[in-house]
């Protein structure tokens, strides 16, 4: 059977199995992303364009982090506990096909949230979007890194540990990561940590593609994402093939 057919059937199985949940998650993400764009402006007494642009270009990154590093690990944890993961490993298909199909599904459910949040932000605040052609590869790269890292740690760690880690990540990404505000507001030690972790690079790459005339992403950001992406998927494939 061709890889494409394999992919089609695995995708069908995984998508239909979680269909109701995925629709629900896509709706939740729309709400969260709008919440970030609008709700966070209440924290700032007189938000200027720069602050709103930070929020508007940060929301898509938060959605991708939330999907890859929070919802996905929780789902993987459940699959591990209820035996579905072990069942998938008996399927007559390549392990990478399963990972590819799952990645596509996770990617798909992030799109409505990102699009709706960006449109709402534009209509309400006109924060100064300047969308570059790099938005598609940037979004893919950030999504793959986030999903890859999510797979990596949720396959490697026990369901309980990965659940705990995902809770720390969602809190850390929202409050202590330079996604919705500039890096220089953080203490130096946390800045150093974010130079290594992928969250800052995700935010920088996303910003540079959504507001190309205001923000730049460095080559270092892209390399950082690439390394984390390879590490994440590498770890996931290693665990799937582990005997």
């Amino acid at each position, binding site marked *: *059977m061709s890889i494409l*057919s*394999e992919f089609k*059937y*695995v995708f*069908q*199985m995984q998508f*239909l*199995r*979680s*269909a*109701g*949940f995925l629709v629900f998650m896509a709706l939740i993400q729309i709400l969260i992303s709008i919440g970030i764009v609008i709700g966070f402006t209440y924290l700032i007494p007189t938000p200027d364009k720069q602050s709103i642009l930070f929020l508007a270009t940060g929301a898509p990154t938060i959605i991708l982090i939330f999907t890859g590093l929070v919802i996905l690990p929780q789902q993987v944890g459940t699959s591990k506990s*209820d*035996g*579905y993961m*072990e*069942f998938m*490993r*008996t*399927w*007559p*298909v*390549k392990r990478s096909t399963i990972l590819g199909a799952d990645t596509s599904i996770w990617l798909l459910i992030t799109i409505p949230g990102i699009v709706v949040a960006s449109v709402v932000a534009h209509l309400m605040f006109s924060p100064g979007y300047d969308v570059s052609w790099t938005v598609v590869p940037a979004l893919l790269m950030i999504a793959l890194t986030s999903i890859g890292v999510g797979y990596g740690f949720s396959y490697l760690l026990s369901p309980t540990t990965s659940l705990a880690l995902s809770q720390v990540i969602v809190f850390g990404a929202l409050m202590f990561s330079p996604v919705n505000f500039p890096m220089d507001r953080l203490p130096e030690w946390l800045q150093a940590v974010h130079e290594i972790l992928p969250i800052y690079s995700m935010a920088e790459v996303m910003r540079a593609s959504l507001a190309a005339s205001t923000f730049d992403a460095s080559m270092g950001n892209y390399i950082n994402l690439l390394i984390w992406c390879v590490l994440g998927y590498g770890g996931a494939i290693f665990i799937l093939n582990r*005997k």
Partner: protein
Amino acid sequence: MVLDVKNVTKNFRGKGKTNVIANDNITFHINEGEIFGLLGQNGAGKTTLVNQIVGLITPDHGEINLLGKSVKEYPERARSICSVQPQSQVPLGFLTPRQAVSIMGKMRAGKNYDPKRLDMLFESLGMGEWADKEGEKLSGGARRLAAFCMAVIVPGQLVILDEPTNDVDPVRRRYLWEVIRNLTKVGTSVILVTHNVLEAEKAVDRVAIVHKGKIVKQGTPSEIKSSVNNQMRMELNVNKTEKLVVPEWALTSHQNGMRWIFQVESSHVSSAIEWASGEVNMGNVVDYSLSPTTIEDAYIELTSNKVVVSS
């Protein structure tokens, strides 16, 4: 020969530095069109063995060959030769049994998938009422049957069924055994993993009894039974459990609620009948029967040297 398992040993690291031997030097083979039973208590090492056959884990020692080729070297080939119904329930989520089974069929057969087989399977197993209900809303038995259908919709040359009848009602169990028997008519071999010994006796061609990671006996059900030859089985239903004193001639005794089973040497049959009649007259025993040894008796004797009392 479909499957050849030679001297397979698998250890797991337990708590601390302890070593748990899940499989200890296991050797057996399965022929084409044969139903092979793997019987054993919980934790005997049956599922570990099955996972090695499908290539999910690798043996520490020994070799497993499927249709002449090593599973270790060709794990993906092993997964296409074997179709598996896992021991745990398959969480179908929002998938209906019809969707789950047909997608699995297409995943195995591609364009050669025949949707008529799905209808035939669902009809044989009386699954019509559940076919289009979401998996989440199905009972345990219906989900178990759906997982069974996923394994046999396009059966590999070796179908592995791990406790397929758990949660399934008695009527559909019979249908299920029929479907399994029909699989072998087209040359499919079946490994049946179970601890439901009596049921397996009727279904399997050959059987291996696994105990503490080792195969303690293998052969046809009659060969297994012959290991406790010249023995009879006395089954009694009692009034009150505490009143019954196990007689001296009972080789083993097995209690299950108000039901007792004794193993009896043929030479002691008359004393056993005499004793049982006396107990009936005294009102301690409601009724009794004598029959030849079943595979369950052999199984209990082979896997336990002491009197077994379960409730």
